[in-house]
């Protein structure tokens, strides 16, 4: 039954049953795993954790607004070739010298199994995911200039993350295993903090988490802080040697939790209002 290695998280990356199940589905069926969720819930880290747990090399393809599907497969460096032909450098006859594999190309051409992370796929143009359908399905592509076919010997583990900036096309979605990373509950969050900051005073962690959840609950906050912000904030507090925090106006290093100016203002408002109410 288990001819494949099951993913169970790592020492540094804690998972839920649902996430493990989704990863294992993707591994067993050889389909890409699409991960969505609030920013800062560890979408990108998941790929690193999978690579670590399965001891496979990790290739990363950071998608930008100008990225095109072709860039991930290969780039034919025509300009270099033109220059070489003009100045007589290099072996101009060998087109292969000027074909450079992108991250997807590298993953297919690699001799062993690899983990490929396509990060923030929604940043690119709307048509971007559609252009990758065939390649991700068949795990092979043809280099038009040379007629060579690059085919994956072992299907790479493809992890795709999305921040929901654009909706992804249905045809693309249908080929993926989908997982939506929930915001961790308090129990899991405590464990996550413990993994990142081992040996931290328990009282301190409880206080920091209480403040953190209070801030998340505030209705007027637009960009709610998430796991990565909490981890960073605790790191800052630790380095500054602060031993106790409570929800108050002059919260130390508040900037690590709230990243928007209007949120900082809303936070101050809320607390000022609360104090007046209490007295």
């Amino acid at each position: 039954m288990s001819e494949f290695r099951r993913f169970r998280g790592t020492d540094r990356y804690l998972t839920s049953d649902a996430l493990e199940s989704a990863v294992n589905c993707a591994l067993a069926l050889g389909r890409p795993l699409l991960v969505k969720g609030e920013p800062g819930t560890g979408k990108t880290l998941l790929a690193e954790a999978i690579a670590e747990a399965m001891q496979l090399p990790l290739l990363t393809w950071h998608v930008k607004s100008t990225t095109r599907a072709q860039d991930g497969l290969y780039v034919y460096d025509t300009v270099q070739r033109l220059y070489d032909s003009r100045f007589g450098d290099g072996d101009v006859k060998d087109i292969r010298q000027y074909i450079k594999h992108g991250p997807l190309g590298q993953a297919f051409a690699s001799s062993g199994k690899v983990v490929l992370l396509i990060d923030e796929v929604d940043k690119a143009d709307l048509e971007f995911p559609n252009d990758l359908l065939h390649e991700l399905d068949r795990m092979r592509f043809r280099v038009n200039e040379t007629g060579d076919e690059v085919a994956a010997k072992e299907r790479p583990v493809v992890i795709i993350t999305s921040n929901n900036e654009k909706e992804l096309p249905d045809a693309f979605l249908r080929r993926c295993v989908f997982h939506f990373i929930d915001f961790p509950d308090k129990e899991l969050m405590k464990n996550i903090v413990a993994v990142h900051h081992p040996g931290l005073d328990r009282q301190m962690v409880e206080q920091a988490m209480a403040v953190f959840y209070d801030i998340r609950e505030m209705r007027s906050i637009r960009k709610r802080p998430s796991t990565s912000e909490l981890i960073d904030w605790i790191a800052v507090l630790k380095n500054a040697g602060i031993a106790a925090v409570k929800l108050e106006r002059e919260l130390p290093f508040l900037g690590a939790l709230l990243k928007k100016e209007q949120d900082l203002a809303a936070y101050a408002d809320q607390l000022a209002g609360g104090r007046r109410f209490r007295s």
Partner: protein
Amino acid sequence: MFIDFLYELRKRKVPVGTQEAVAVAEALAKGLHESSLEGFYQVARALMIHSEQHLDDFDIAFGVAFRGAQATAIEITEELLSWLKDPKPMRELSPEERAMIEALDLETVREMLEQRLREQKERHDGGNRWVGTGGTSPFGRGGENPNGINVGGSTGKGKGGAMQSADARKYKPYRSDATLETRQIEVALRKLRLFARDGAEQELDLDKTIDETARNAGELEVVVRPPRRNNTRVILMMDVGGSMEPHREYVQQLFTAARRATHWKELRTYYFHNCVYGKLWKTDGFQESVSVRELINECGKHSGRSYKLVLCGDALMAPYELMGFAGVAEDDRVTGIEWLMHLREHFERSVWLNPEHPRGWKGNTIEAIAKVFPMFPLTVEGLSEGVDEIVKGRRSRARAV
């Protein structure tokens, strides 16, 4: 049972088909669900759901389809009745508890239960009426009522099972038919893009470079071209005041999102009241009027710039407002509906977004206006459909309402 589940999902407009069914079957064949309902829930969710918008529907459908796998109140009615006829000895009760029991005789309880089982369609927990768990209703399991009927065996302790996960419905906030959020609108509006090459020449035009170099007998001749830029121009017209008051917040959000969408070349916003006549206003306080004829001349299809028109209003008004002449002086023989038809004619890519629920779209002025403009409800789904309609730009095809 699984096929039923599939159709239950489809009934809730979750896009699942053969592909998903085959994928789940394959996963089950490989034993990914670890032979548990919990595991099946996770596997099916990962493979059948493609967007967090549908997670809530999945949970509901799962609850409906697989209730029987764990405890189906409705299916075990007969068993229930037999339990009622033969009550088990009860534990020692306090006088208060006894009084409560006596308040309900067996016959009444049985009748109530039968009735409730007929009425009950879905799971109800923590309440005091329906058959469910953890409540104070006389029927259910794990509840508080000492005279209650325990339905479906005792509640096991330990980790929450698939039913509990499904019943928790924690993905409710992600439903797309719920409220519109500015961000969701932005996501939908992003689709309204049109790329064109415009501006400074910054990009290498490879094909032309090769062409020119070849013409130049091998001497390198680099050709550059302007990069692709977004060339979308949008006109947004909004109905304000009167019957639009209750929808004010949604319309405001649409407006904010449109303003924030920096990827457009141009956005014009105008206001009208009830129906568009000869004039539009630049502010919602009806100041600075603009003549519709001028607007059409400037932005219509003959102006050479393709503007996209989005109207937003409830389209509800007295029939005379639509068929009457309320226009400006020089156009006083043009009715409201004719003005709208004018607009539709000059803006091929146009839609009407309506904050009213589609159930109320029949037999009033909405129906008439929906024949002029393709009309979509002002929800995330409706907005995306509307945007798709604009992008496709099909001519004069009003949606059957």
